[in-house]
């Protein structure tokens, strides 16, 4: 048991683990994470199987990375605990039995004789120390007084509080990992969707996109209502950076898009010899429109928002309406006489394949589709631990760097009649310069009244 504790309390282990975690993290940024097996095969060839088996492809969630993190946490915990009790003793119950030789062996030390009695010297010294905001502890014995003057004592716990914060953050991470989940909800205006694992539903009242003057997106704004049972509980407008939080579920504005399943298409049927006699219609997919003047019927069969030909097949490149196209079929007397794609951005490019010479053409003038709002829902029970841990960590860092503890030890001893020998030594790990100047001020003040 003791050897296990010794192992985990060593700083060398901490340094080894930090190096391992650093190297692993670097590797994780060099190998793309969480991709498909084919991509790895294309990228790494034969090596890909090994990488996948060793979970280098989802490194930060791999059993071995988590095992190292766990060891790291254990290391931090045991390191901190084993160092804590001597620190507590030194702080609250310090040893006041100083030895002259020890003090004189310090780097910052002095020994001199003052022509004052012991009580006089003590009073004077204490006064000086108090004016410099030192806290003084004392220990008296025959003919000798030991004083321990300290400042910013709690600073020595800075690192422990940082470590505590790190542990709380790691615990929060574990809770998030096991207890949290995230999912995307695409929801159209007016739609109500049930929320998984919750006793309420979410309704999108309104969705708007705001634009900058140059046309780029400024913000997406969704007005959401939480419905519990049948009654609305809460309505809030969310936008990017301003989520809605309800009963541990948080709803974020994350994306937007159009519902291309059922767009409303504005199609103009134009007589080429006489453009003034054209027919302007609004069509949905599958609806047939009669064009009496020409004795025709036409219908929109398929819609593609961002048309591209890929291996002879039309498909959409994205879900944005970058190159909207609709496939039109034209009938006369129940027989299909013409069909083809028409493009809203390229009206002249439209190519209709027909059996006979035609005197009409079609143009896709406008497309209207319901916009949906992409809402990311997350439930993360670990997040409060993270903030608590961060607060500890920052407090600890502040204490460790800006609350540097220091002390000066004194042995005052009555030598001969009316004379006092003062031996003093200063100690500080993190603010030697400040301590030195304080030490010198104390000594100068003591000497000036020699």
């Amino acid at each position, binding site marked *: 048991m003791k050897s296990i504790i010794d192992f985990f309390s060593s*700083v*060398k282990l*901490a*340094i080894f683990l*930090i*190096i391992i*975690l*650093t190297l692993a*993290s*670097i590797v*994780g*940024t*060099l190998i*793309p*994470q969480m991709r498909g097996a084919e991509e790895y095969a294309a990228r790494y060839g034969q090596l890909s199987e090994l990488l996948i088996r060793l979970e280098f492809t989802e490194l*930060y969630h791999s059993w071995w990375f988590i095992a190292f993190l766990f060891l790291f946490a254990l290391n931090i915990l045991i390191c901190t605990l084993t160092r804590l009790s001597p620190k507590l003793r030194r702080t609250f119950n310090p040893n006041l039995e100083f030895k002259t030789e020890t003090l004189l062996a310090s780097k910052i030390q002095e020994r001199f004789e003052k022509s004052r009695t012991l009580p006089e010297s003590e009073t004077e010294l204490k006064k000086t120390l108090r004016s410099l905001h030192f806290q003084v502890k004392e220990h008296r014995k025959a003919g000798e007084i030991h004083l321990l003057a300290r400042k910013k004592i709690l600073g020595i716990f800075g*690192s422990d509080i940082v470590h505590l914060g790190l542990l709380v953050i790691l615990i929060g*991470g574990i809770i*998030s990992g096991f207890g949290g989940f*995230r999912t995307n909800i695409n929801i159209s205006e007016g739609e109500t969707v049930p929320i998984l694992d919750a006793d309420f539903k979410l309704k999108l009242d309104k969705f708007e996109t705001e634009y*900058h*003057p*140059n046309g*780029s*997106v*400024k*913000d*997406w704004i969704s007005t959401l209502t939480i419905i519990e049972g049948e009654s609305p509980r809460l309505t809030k407008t969310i*936008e*990017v*950076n*301003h*989520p809605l939080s309800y009963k541990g579920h*948080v709803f*974020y*504005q*994350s994306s937007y898009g159009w519902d291309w399943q059922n767009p409303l298409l504005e199609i103009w049927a134009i007589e080429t010899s006489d453009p003034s006699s054209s027919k302007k219609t609004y069509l949905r997919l599958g609806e047939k429109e009669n064009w009496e003047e020409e004795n025709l019927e036409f219908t929109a069969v398929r819609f593609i928002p961002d048309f591209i030909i890929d291996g002879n097949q039309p498909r959409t490149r994205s879900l944005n309406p970058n190159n909207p196209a609709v496939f039109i079929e034209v009938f006369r007397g129940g027989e299909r006489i013409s069909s083809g794609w028409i493009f809203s951005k390229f009206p002249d490019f439209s190519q209709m394949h027909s059996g006979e010479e035609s005197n009409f053409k079609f143009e896709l003038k406008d497309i209207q589709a319901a916009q949906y709002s992409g809402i*990311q*829902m*997350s439930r*993360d029970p670990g*997040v409060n631990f*993270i*903030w608590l841990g*961060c607060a500890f*960590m*920052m407090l600890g*860092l*502040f204490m460790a*760097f*800006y609350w540097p503890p220091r002390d000066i030890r004194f042995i005052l001893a009555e030598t001969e009649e009316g004379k006092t020998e003062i031996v003093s030594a200063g100690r500080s*790990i*993190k603010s030697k310069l400040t301590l030195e100047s304080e030490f010198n001020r104390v000594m100068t003040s003591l000497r000036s009244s020699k």
Partner: protein
Amino acid sequence: MTESTLFLITFILYIAAALFYLGYLFTKKEGAAKTGLSIALIGFIIHTLALVWRTIESGHAPFTNMYESLSFLAWSGVLAYIIIEYKYKIRKAGPYLMLIVIGIMALASSPLMPKEASPLVPALQSYWLWLHVSVTLLGEAFFAVAFVTSIMYLVADSREKKGISKQGAISSEKLDSISYRCVAVGFPLFTLGGLVFGMVWAYKAWGSYWSWDPKEVWSLITWFVFALYLHTRIVMGWKGRRSAIIAILGFLAALFTYFGVNYLLAGLHSYA
């Protein structure tokens, strides 16, 4: 007068400051270093005006693209240097630091960096942009000073060992201690701005405080390297050479977090 004019004037002043500093290195005339510092100070004030101007003109924080954040990094570097110079009087670090600042300014003004202030994408419209970026870059500026003093340490140390250190040179011991001081300022700032504020903002904007995005991982790596610096130094008593090397690696990691990730690795953090 526009922001770009102010930027140009700043750039020229920094170059002038560096020249005076270099003159000081060669002639050892205190006056040259003092003039250099004064010019750098004037440059810093004009730089501040340029940043304020940019903020008013664009209506958002002056670090939303590479040009802006480079300019802000240079500003933070000069600020960190002025603070360290004021506290520790390390004139000799001045020329090297000004050279780094000039390098950053040159990069910012290169034609590769788009300069126009474009409207912010929705995710960046948050006051966390101010908190996250400014505190992080300020922390990194102190790492930059530690980087310079650590390199100076390595040079001074090898000279002292060979017994060829010049008179009036800063002792390697002092350089070592200044490096530590800079890390001691930079580390809490970087932790607060880069990691803590970063996590809070990520949680508000993306719904997850940590996504193992390459930029997040690289700031964690930077943090690990400086944690290593502190532990080896404070607990194991490492000093001097080994400490200096770790501080240099730490700044390089910070630099990679800042530049490398954007250009070499893809991720969520695709702004600057």
